[in-house]
């Protein structure tokens, strides 16, 4: 690990200023992702600006929905009564990830900004366009069992590992950020993460020094009929092979609207727009769920080892929708 300067901060503006002033500086929140990356020599910031003491931990209802502080812990967020009541799918998604100990340290901002778990990103002796832009991608012709089937490019096929982000994508959240100029801006959740294209080194659309201050989720009627399903190689403490956040608004035995997002299948949380569109106005039956899943998964492109994700994705969509429709009383 490279030696670094440690800069505590107590005001968001000061933190932003400090990072902006040093092109090699980074924010550190819970540190559960960044410190690992530094120990492995993947990230080597010359300065860490500690934001863990910033007063950005509130979780409160607003006139339009709920606002979740970027520095609220993952555990506190998942277990907050408002979140449990209005967005139980977010609770499920957060609790499906990592371990209790890690969730007690991890923050919401850090969670959505966490980096990929592609093994070649972590193995510094081999090429990786995310780690060393332009060096080449080792996963496309390597062991890509847990890589993307949607949205990848010839530069990178890594998946975004965050479970929380999948639920936030389905719930149409937005991200509030504070910029270096002291101005705030709002990034719609689906514009927060990026597809790799020719610049896989950039995971999201934050500019250097921009600080996530909160995440907002708009009010909705999905709470009674939503479900987060995660399929992994072990029952807990593994990243998703495929996950599905499924939410239904039912009206008189018909689906008024559906929201579906997938994890483990793309470089960003993957909104299944085709499936959502298919379901609007239909009855919530297994046949319709299955047809919706097919409509989404037909666009998937498998790599050498991850073809199973197409079938698994279909089935996971069906099961998540089925459980959402059954309700989570």
């Amino acid at each position: 690990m490279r030696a670094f300067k440690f800069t505590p901060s107590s005001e968001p503006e000061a933190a932003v200023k400090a990072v902006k002033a040093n092109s090699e500086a980074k924010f550190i929140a819970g540190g559960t992702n960044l410190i690992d990356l530094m120990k492995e020599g993947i990230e080597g910031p010359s300065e860490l600006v500690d934001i863990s003491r910033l007063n950005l931990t509130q979780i409160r209802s607003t006139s339009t929905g709920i606002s979740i502080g970027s520095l609220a812990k993952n555990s506190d967020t998942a277990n907050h009564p408002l979140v449990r009541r209005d967005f139980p799918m977010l609770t499920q998604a957060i609790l499906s990830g990592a371990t209790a100990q890690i969730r007690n340290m991890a923050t919401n901002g850090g969670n959505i900004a966490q980096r990929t778990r592609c093994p070649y990103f972590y193995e510094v002796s081999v090429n990786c366009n995310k780690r060393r832009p332009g060096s080449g991608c080792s996963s496309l012709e390597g062991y890509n069992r847990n890589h993307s089937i949607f949205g990848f490019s010839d530069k990178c096929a890594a998946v975004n590992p965050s479970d929380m982000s999948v639920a936030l994508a389905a719930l149409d959240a937005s991200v509030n950020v504070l910029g270096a100029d002291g101005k705030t801006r709002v990034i719609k959740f689906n514009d927060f993460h990026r597809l790799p294209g020719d610049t896989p080194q950039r995971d999201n659309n934050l500019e250097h020094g921009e600080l996530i201050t909160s995440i907002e989720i708009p009010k909705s009627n999905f709470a009674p009929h939503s479900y987060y399903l995660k399929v992994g190689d072990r029952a807990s403490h593994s990243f998703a092979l495929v996950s599905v956040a499924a939410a239904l608004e039912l009206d008189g035995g018909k689906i008024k609207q559906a929201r579906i997002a997938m994890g483990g299948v793309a470089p960003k949380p993957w909104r299944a727009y085709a499936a959502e569109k298919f379901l609007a106005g239909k009855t919530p039956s297994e046949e319709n769920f299955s047809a919706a899943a097919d409509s989404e998964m037909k666009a998937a492109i498998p790599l050498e080892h991850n073809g199973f994700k197409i079938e698994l994705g279909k089935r996971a969509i069906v099961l998540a929708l089925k459980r959402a429709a059954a309700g989570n009383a």
Partner: protein
Amino acid sequence: MARDTKVIGEAISRIDGLLKVTGGANYSTDFPVKNVAYGFIVKSSNAAASIKDIDTTAAEKSPGVIAVLTYKNAPKVAGSGNLSGGVILQEPKVDFYGQHVAVVVADTYEQARYAAELVKVNYEPLPAMVDFDAHKGEAVEPQRGRGSKRGDFDAAFVAAEHKVDQTYLTPVYHHQPLEPHSTIAVWEGSKLTLYNASQVVNGVQNAIAAVFGLKPADVHVVTPHVGGGFGSKGSAWPHVVLAAMAAKLVNRPVKLALTRQNMFNSVGLRQRNVQHVRLAASADGKLTAIGHDTTTHTAVTGEFIEQCGHLSSMMYDAPNASIGYRVLPMNVIIPTFTRAPGESTGSFATESAIDELAYELKMDPIEFRLKNFSMTDPSNGRPFSSRATAEALKKGAEMIGWTKRKMQPRSIRNGDFLIGYGVAIGSYPSRQVPSSTLVKLKRAGNDVTATIETAASDLGTGTYTIVAQTAAETLGLPMDKVEVKIGDSEFPPAAGSVGSIGAASFCNSVSETCIQAKNELQAKTGRTWVAPPTVAQLMEAANLNEYQTRVDARPSAEAQKYSSHAFNANFSEVWVNAYTGAVRVPRHVAVTGAGKIINAKTARSQIIGGCIWGIGMALTEASILDPRWGNFVTRTYNDYHIPANLDVGTIDVAFIPEDDRVVNRLGIKGVGEVGIVGVAASIANAAFNATGKRVRDLPLTPDKLL
């Protein structure tokens, strides 16, 4: 603690437990050593290469760095010491990805670790054999052929009415004990002290002595507490030598700890096995032929193979059998002993095939097994000293509720889940090996305390406790009057905690020593005693306040005339998500006949631990090698999936009482390995019963059951 002295067999919590949970137990790197420097290993990023040069300039200039050890300045060694993984830094050559090529020594760990990134190795790559699946056809007869034959397998197989002819695959597994391997090396003149995590205290002592040309007595190994090993700490690995070399180079003690990532290519592995099993039976369910051919890999530098076919050779009494091995030397770290080497992986193949044949015969798999074993070991014609297979099958069937099982797959469904039941049996050889003990008795009035000294090791398994129990009961003292000192080569040489020999070897030795102490004391009193005297009475009558005696215990000659194994039966209830293919094991039953159980609690824990690793084998664990470079892409606990709590349902453990005085005087068979044997097959068989899908390629990840 109980003042009772009848403690053998009781469920007694580990006497070192308090020390451990309060942080008082020193593991190897915990020892406070003055003026210690820190080593960090630089690993090869090539699977085969000659090293043209190593540039250490930048590393040497980095803050805190004292020296960089490479092939250029490493001392020449005196001998190989039969080090696992070969002697290193003797020549500019690399034989596998991750081989140690340099050690940076600095004042702090962080400085050493950072400077290790600055060492530049200039490789001349050589052709490397790293793709096992592509080249397994080139595997050759092992140098030490371990195959065996009886009867005429080919003729019997061709003639048979019912057969199974299938190939079973197991991936590379890693031990990954909780405590990574670590060493502190301290030289005082030509004497070397190693605080080193080891399963076999004297093994490391002798190996390192041979490497440096020292007398074993000049190498002092200290390892009072070991944080798990599973075989990977059974031998001396190169990093132990490197720590000692580095300490010599910088003239300071050096602490060298492997990182979790390092552990994947530093201390062995369980190799990938391709097992071709052919079974044949008559229509009435009598096995007529067993064929078991294993193709596997070893290192280019040395041969190690697991005896996957061993279980097939001795478990069932088919008249015709053919067991064979082929091995491919590869540029991958050498495999080593891994919990139940051979039996654990072999039983997956054998016991899956038995289940397949039972289906082919439309026979209940319990009935089929009962019909095909005998009380004589068919591989060598010797009688089993005892064998609890039938009792274990019967008891386990009751415990799991076998009557709920339907032969027809996919018969039981509950909501989104398909439910199935499976069974598999296993065994592991039981052996006692030479092991010495010193007992020291001290008396103050009527109060006698005993100190037991033996160079045994405790991997968290309970050695301290069973030694204390044995000594207490034999001497007639309460356990808190017995102090156990182990994990130090200054004590009399002992067996290692390997191959399930520990309990049998330690406890028989301790018991013999305590009996000898009493006998010698009695002789010294010159009296005959009507009622059996206490040790205190004996010492008083002999007018002694202190007494000590030592026994070098040996296995009996009688035991060699028999075949001795612990036998088990496993039963699993498996729920498979009909949508996602995810497999859960809400219940697993393990019934074991393992002779005398010294401590009901620690023995149960050993079996549970074995079952958990068996669940890992069945469902989650696999190390994946990238055939382009020979590196493991699974390189942390994040991607090498040992089972998490949620993967492990209820494990019910039962023992069949056995009184086997042939295996050894105390009748101990050992429980360290047998617990894992058969577990993966039991789960895979249950998954077949649940889904109708036979997976012959571990692990049963969701993709394989879609």
